[in-house]
């Protein structure tokens, strides 16, 4: 009996949550460009984010932007605490310094808060002296024919 | 010759041996009788070093065996023919015999011992190249005995050699047991088949629920009494 009432309560709470989510819709979608370069310290990177309105291409200033990072190869286990960014010189640009745990591919999640809530994900490869596109997804043993 | 004193072996919290003491005399056949679950196999495995006792000692001619690895115990001269035979199924009969001499050096001697085994067990010679897993139950039992003898043991332990074998084969096994003993091998035999065991044994022990409850020679207690004490009569009636 105890279980049954508890179960009902949970079901009701979840149902209320799911229903409450149906009302508000947000029309603006953000688009982001990210460039990062190694900072003086090992495993630290300075990143510049440029946010624009996906439809109008107009810059998006005044956003509270944080950058989080996850390793796609292990969801949940390797993530670093999101860092706050500061507005850059040009409108719609933001700067932050990221401290990673290891080199390799990281999925940066750009979390937008304030007037606009959104999240954009970018995957980059972080090496000790450079940051670039994630490697073509190859493993050893895959050689082109000579 | 083989002295077991106050042996306690436990599986977790359950004590399978609750202080077992017994003695196997040199040159004789000593038998251990008792119902299923009395702890007979546990005792054999403890003597062979597969199981570690919680308390108590096993000595061979006064030399401590307790705590040695199974390999060292074989080297000291104790060989066990395990319950259900446990031959190496993917190896030939010949290789099984060679494995039995694993602790020994000297190829020539080992080779002549193998030939002696073939002389004693002609069936094994016929099947020398066959994989042991394909032998019949009786043949596997003979192989297991021969394999154990290949280590030239001072004491041969046998755990239920008659298990699951046809009556004619059982008689053959016991004939071999007697023969081995007449040739000088000391044998310690665990059996449920009290009738057969009492025919060959010089001395026997009764074991019930992890304890030795009787010790004597086959004449000392009526066979019916032995069978009953070992709960075998009840088992037979039920089975």
């Amino acid at each position, binding site marked *: 009996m105890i279980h049954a009432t508890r179960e009902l309560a949970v079901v009701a709470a979840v149902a209320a949550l799911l229903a409450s989510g149906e009302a508000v819709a947000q029309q603006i979608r953000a688009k982001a460009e990210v460039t990062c370069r190694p900072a003086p310290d*090992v495993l630290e990177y300075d990143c510049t984010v440029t946010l624009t309105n996906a439809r109008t291409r107009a810059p998006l200033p005044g956003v509270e932007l944080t950058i989080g990072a996850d390793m796609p190869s292990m969801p949940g286990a390797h993530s670093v605490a999101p860092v706050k960014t500061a507005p850059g010189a040009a409108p719609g640009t933001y700067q932050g310094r990221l401290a990673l745990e*290891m*080199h*390799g591919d990281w999925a940066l999640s750009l979390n937008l808060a304030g007037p606009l809530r959104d999240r954009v994900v970018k995957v980059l*490869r972080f*090496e*000790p002296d450079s940051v670039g596109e994630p*490697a073509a997804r190859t*493993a*050893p*043993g*895959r*050689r082109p*024919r*000579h | 010759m083989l002295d077991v004193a106050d042996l306690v072996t436990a599986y977790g919290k359950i004590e399978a041996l609750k202080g077992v003491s017994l003695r196997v005399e040199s040159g004789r056949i000593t038998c251990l009788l008792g119902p299923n679950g009395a702890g007979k196999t546990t005792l054999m495995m403890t003597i*062979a*070093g*597969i199981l570690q006792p919680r308390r108590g000692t096993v000595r061979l001619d006064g030399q401590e065996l307790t705590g040695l*690895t*199974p*390999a060292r115990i*074989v*080297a000291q001269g104790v*060989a*066990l023919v*395990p319950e259900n035979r*446990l*031959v*190496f*199924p*993917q*190896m030939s009969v010949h*290789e099984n015999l*060679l*494995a*039995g001499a*694993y*602790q020994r050096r000297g190829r020539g001697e080992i080779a002549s011992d193998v030939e002696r085994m073939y002389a004693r067990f002609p069936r094994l010679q016929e099947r020398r190249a066959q994989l042991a897993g394909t032998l019949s139950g009786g043949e596997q039992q003979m192989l297991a005995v021969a*394999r*154990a003898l*290949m*280590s030239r043991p001072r004491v041969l332990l046998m755990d239920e050699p008659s298990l699951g074998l046809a009556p004619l084969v059982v008689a053959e096994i016991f004939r071999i047991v007697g023969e081995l003993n007449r040739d000088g091998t000391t044998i310690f035999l665990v059996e449920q088949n009290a009738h057969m065991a009492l025919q060959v044994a010089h001395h026997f022990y009764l074991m019930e629920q992890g304890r030795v409850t009787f010790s004597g020679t086959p004449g000392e207690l009526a066979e019916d009494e032995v069978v009953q004490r070992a709960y075998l009569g009840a088992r037979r009636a039920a089975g």
Partner: protein
Amino acid sequence: MIDFLQNTIDGVMTGASYALLALGFTLIFGVMRRLNLSYGPSIMVGAYLGTLAHLHLAAGPLGVAAVTVAGAVLAGLYVERLCFAPMAAGAGIAAMVSSFAIWMQLEQAAILVLPRHTYPFPPLASATAWLGPFLLRLDQLIMLASALVLALGVQALLYGTRFGLALRAIIGNPTAAHLVGIDVRRATVLAFALASAVGGVAGFLVLASDAQVTPMFGMWATMKGLIAMMIGGLGSIPGALVGGLLLGVVEAQSQWYLGPQLRDLAAYVLLFACLVWRPGGLFGAAPVRDLARGRSL
């Protein structure tokens, strides 16, 4: 037709490396009846030590090979001590999960020492030769020759020596092996070291022909070795050889005819089909009895 044959040749060459990986894997599995997920990562540790020797001590290919093999053996023994030796008879899954935890450890250790994604590995022999219309690479020929020699060597060891007799006895029945006086513990450790050494050779040859090493090599080696072993049949040496070569050829053909993206897919389809239609593998009999009972791994 020329393409098909060239693919087959390439596949056999690559397959030789898979066969070597499967050989070590199957040896560990046969003797222990346990799955060592850290098998590839311990080879990777050896390769990283080899790379270190290459970078800092300017070691040549042979020196790097020696360091790689020795490192793989050391890492393998570490895994054995921590994940397999202390586990009781019924704890097969725990041992496997434990070897997975150590995989994480080894990978991070490698990354700590050498943080870049790739490092150079000394190439062995990149010369090529034409045999009629077919192109052959020298380093791959060495790989194929090594696979054949090592497989034959392991087979000879198993069937022609006292140590091999002990190993086969343990494979057949560990309890009975104890009872005939085999030091099972010692033989198991030696088998583990031998398997790691074979894996180390495989790792060296693969990486030397790639000329680079990444920490991902550990996972790659475990996966390729596992697939080849399962296709060929658990615990079977000819199975490891044939499973590796078959995997290599199927990959090479599907890469050529279907494209690189479908290559790996084809490998897994092959594995899945083999398991469903012939669970014991091509060279195994029916699945080993104690495995059939789900409980033990």
